[in-house]
């Protein structure tokens, strides 16, 4: 099982896209009329949010594939996708908070549905690794984690919709840009930033998959060379540690 295909071109692409996006953010995109320079954090916050949401849903899709096929490689992919998305989600919360502070004066605003949904989604997926860790048998751990990932993946869009409905009736969105329509220059920058973030996510996931897969192969080799006695027993872990058993 090779996981590390295409790492170099992906890494290069991510770097290029992100640098390009940053360049555009600072030199090309116009300043927002209301919020000024501070609004530029939007180019970091929203792409992270979109990619993280995509990652959670992808985690759910890989979980479905795992349950249908029994192939633990899908479980590994699901785990890595969710794990990375959780990290991005923390980034979303931090950048969102910074944005709120800089433009609205408070470290948190309840009126921004993206931010609120992410808080809820973060609270949910923060249980993913503890749930995995609490189950000893690796096969059962993978299955239960897959069920959780599927439920979470379905939950993410529903939650977003519900929160948005609850907020939109009370207040207009505060952290949106120029009343909803984006001028072309902003749109270009945003799309580039989104592409760069997505590329970065996929690259990082692939790196983690390659690393884990290499560790597993190393262990299998050690076992083949030295027998079972040569190996230290695997401790409990939230992450999948083997693709076979």
């Amino acid at each position, binding site marked *: 099982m090779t996981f590390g295909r295409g790492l170099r071109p992906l890494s290069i692409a991510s770097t290029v896209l992100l640098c390009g996006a940053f360049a555009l953010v600072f030199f090309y995109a116009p300043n927002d009329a209301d919020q000024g320079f501070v609004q530029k954090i939007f180019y970091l916050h929203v792409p992270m949010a979109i990619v993280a949401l995509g990652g959670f849903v992808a985690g759910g899709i890989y979980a479905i594939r795992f349950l249908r096929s029994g192939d633990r490689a899908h479980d590994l992919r699901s785990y890595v996708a969710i794990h990375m998305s959780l990290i991005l989600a923390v980034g979303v919360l931090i950048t969102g908070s910074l944005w709120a502070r800089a433009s609205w004066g408070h470290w948190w605003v309840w009126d921004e549905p993206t931010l609120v949904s992410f808080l809820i989604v973060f609270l949910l997926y923060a249980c993913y690794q*503890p749930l995995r860790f609490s189950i000893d048998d690796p096969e059962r751990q993978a299955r239960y984690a897959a069920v959780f990932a599927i439920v979470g993946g379905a939950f993410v869009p529903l939650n977003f919709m519900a929160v948005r409905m609850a907020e939109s009736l009370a207040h207009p969105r505060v952290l949106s840009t120029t009343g909803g329509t984006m001028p072309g220059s902003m749109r270009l920058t945003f799309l580039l930033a989104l592409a760069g973030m997505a590329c970065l996510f996929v690259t990082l996931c692939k790196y983690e998959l390659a690393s884990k897969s290499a560790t597993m192969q190393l262990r299998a080799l050690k076992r083949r060379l030295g027998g079972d006695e040569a190996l230290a027993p695997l401790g409990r872990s939230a992450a999948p540690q083997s693709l076979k058993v």
Partner: protein
Amino acid sequence: MRRTVGALMRKDLRLELRSFESVPAMLMFSVSAFVLFRFGLDRDALAGDLAAGVLWVTLLLAAVLGMSRLFVTEQEQGGFDGFLMAPVDRTAMFLAKASVLFCFLVAAELVAVPAFVLLLLEPGWGQILPELLAVLVLADLGIAVIGTLVGALGVQTRARELIVPLMALPLLIPVAIGAAEATAPLFAAGGAGPLPGRWLAVLALYDAVFGLLAFAVFDFLLED
């Protein structure tokens, strides 16, 4: 299938009547919470969205108490093995447990909701009963589905009492939103307003999506 679900439900309801583990705890918790709210908010009469919020937060937290215990007897007394060896459709376990949890919720609410109206609700009963029932039923369906899923996910864990609430509460936030938003006009101080149909639709959608999803994936939790 119906026979199996019936057999499972009879067994669980009988066990609950014998041991009184879940429903009294949910009940007592709700009433205590109402008292706490009275002092915590320093108000002895609530109306509108504040009243709706207090009611639904309390009901949700009480429901979470019932969820952790749902599968514990099966796990500890070998109920899973007995069921898995029977020539029955395994999805019956999900249907039965969700129905049982629904019954527990209804039983607890039969006391908790009147207690709430009596203790804290400023406008009183009025004409709101049918609408309130509709919201309660839809919300309870969602809670029952999620509770069964999460209860089963947590059954293997030693830290069950911790992880089940942590998983269940975020998942139930859309139910909280829908139920509270739907109930708020019913509790309005100046007289009950109309029930916002959109929130009932949200609850129904949530129930449908998660109900179907749970139905599809639950068997995977029973294998091996």
